[in-house]
């Protein structure tokens, strides 16, 4: 049975060039006598989207990578996972070119678990060869939960400008195609004029963004734009500072729109929780409640946030042999985040399990320091460190003195125990802080 239902004449995809109904999405054939791996280098084009949909419907496993992935890493991944088909590459040693993809010349016996649907990288574009294994059931159940709480129906027209290889982007595509809704497909950012004319002309009903998107939206004066068809804004992909949550929550309230702050992890395909839009002002700073059919709890002894649901991944893959593995987690995900929960069942992330340093034997949670300073200064900053020094990276020189004072006041740290560094904070393409790089450049 097909994963995505394509036999209808409703609008599926709108690009800058034209409109495609579900029937008009090309069916790309992936023929093999066994289950294979399809590697797709993702861009937001109709060709890539059609290939993704076809590959999902073919029941082969699909690996989604960013088209601007580092070439060396890509080569390592191809050697390690031996995909039968590669989409989005002109040529590759040992592969033959056909119209839609490259096909491996040599036949290899593959052993891929029948439930395995999608492989997503654990670290975006900078990447590793470690992947999250998602099953058809993971994808289906998460799409259904999202459809429920965002109330997605066939009339929905979602702007999709996030990468498909990024779990948030993938979930927008899955949930909307699953609901029989439409996707406005573009690679443009909110910083481009043509993005806005596309959104207006095509009657976009929802926009999705990571924290940096919302910083940009605020800077370009989004709240003054006339967007009558737009009714939903969603935010995920990292913590949006509370000031901005409130800014957009107020806007949504005044303009009769819905603003959803959401939390998730690629390991959960990816959505885990959300704040119901009517609660976003009251519950700003929290990650909300579990998605429909999911369950959240805080482990009493460790403080770790635990998620349970049908969308929890099968496990990780680090080599070809791992693709044969069945479900290893049994629907239980240790998020690695620590959290608290309030009387009404709203969860608040307090830090990461592993981002601790010890200063003079004192356990310091780097995320808590970051959060605390961010809420006092409202500037971009990031903390890293080793067991003898806390490092606070900031981007503006003028904040060095006030932050020094705050750190000494808050944490009673001696001046040799910490350092404030003025620098460009390294970030991933999705604007999340690259803590690995930050640590490397500071220590």
């Amino acid at each position, binding site marked *: 049975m097909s994963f995505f239902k394509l036999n209808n004449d409703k609008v599926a995809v709108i690009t800058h060039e034209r409109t495609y109904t579900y029937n008009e999405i090309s069916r790309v054939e992936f023929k093999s006598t066994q289950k294979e791996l399809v590697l797709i280098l993702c861009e937001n084009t109709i060709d890539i989207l059609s290939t993704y949909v076809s590959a999902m419907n073919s029941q082969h496993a699909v690996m989604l990578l960013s088209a601007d992935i580092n070439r060396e890493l890509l080569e390592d991944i191809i050697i390690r996972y031996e995909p039968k088909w590669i989409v989005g590459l002109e040529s590759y040693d040992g592969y033959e070119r056909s119209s839609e993809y490259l096909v491996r010349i040599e036949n290899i016996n593959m052993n891929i678990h029948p439930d395995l649907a999608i492989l997503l990288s654990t670290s975006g574009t900078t990447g590793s060869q470690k992947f999250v294994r998602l099953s058809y059931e993971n994808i289906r159940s998460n799409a259904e939960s999202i459809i429920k709480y965002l109330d997605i129906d066939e009339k929905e027209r979602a702007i999709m400008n996030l990468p498909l290889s990024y779990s948030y982007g993938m979930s927008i595509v899955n949930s909307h195609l699953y609901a029989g809704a439409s996707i406005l497909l573009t690679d443009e950012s*909110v910083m481009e004029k043509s993005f806005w004319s596309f959104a207006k002309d095509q009657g976009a009903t929802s926009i999705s963004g990571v924290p940096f998107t919302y910083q940009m939206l605020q800077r370009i*004066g989004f709240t003054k734009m006339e967007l009558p068809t737009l009714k939903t804004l969603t935010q995920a992909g990292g913590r949006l500072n509370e000031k901005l949550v409130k800014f957009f929550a107020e806007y949504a309230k005044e303009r009769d729109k819905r603003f959803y702050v959401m939390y998730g992890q690629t390991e959960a395909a990816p959505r885990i929780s959300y704040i119901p839009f009517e609660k976003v002002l009251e519950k700003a700073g929290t990650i909300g409640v579990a998605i429909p059919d999911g369950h959240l709890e805080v482990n009493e002894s460790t403080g770790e946030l635990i998620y349970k649901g049908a969308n929890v991944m099968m496990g990780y893959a680090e080599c070809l042999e791992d693709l044969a593995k069945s479900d290893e987690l049994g629907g239980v995900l240790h998020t690695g985040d620590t959290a608290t929960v309030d009387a009404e069942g709203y969860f608040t992330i307090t830090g990461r399990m592993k981002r601790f340093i010890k200063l003079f034997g004192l356990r310091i949670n780097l995320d808590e320091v970051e959060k605390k300073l961010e809420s006092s200064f409202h500037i971009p900053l990031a903390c890293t460190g080793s067991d003898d020094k806390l490092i606070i990276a900031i981007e503006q020189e003028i904040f060095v003195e006030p932050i020094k004072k705050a750190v000494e006041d808050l944490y009673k740290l001696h001046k040799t125990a910490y350092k404030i560094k003025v620098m460009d904070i390294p970030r991933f393409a999705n604007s999340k802080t690259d803590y690995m790089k930050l640590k490397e450049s500071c220590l």
Partner: protein
Amino acid sequence: MTNEEKLREIFVEALGIDINQVTEDLAYNTIPEWDSIAHMALIAEIDDQFDTMLDTDDVLDMSTFAKAKEILVKYDVEF
């Protein structure tokens, strides 16, 4: 420093590119360095150094170096 030199320097800093790359027709999204993230930094730096507060259309219109000068003229910056 002339305003032209100042603007050129802002482009170099915000985009992290070589001064020789800052030509009149240097355009948004034509080099990997000038993406939406760098554009935010560029706008912030321009606002800061020329003491402006560019409005929506101008932020979105500022797609080349030449265009940036054209826009700044509206804010009484002389070139």
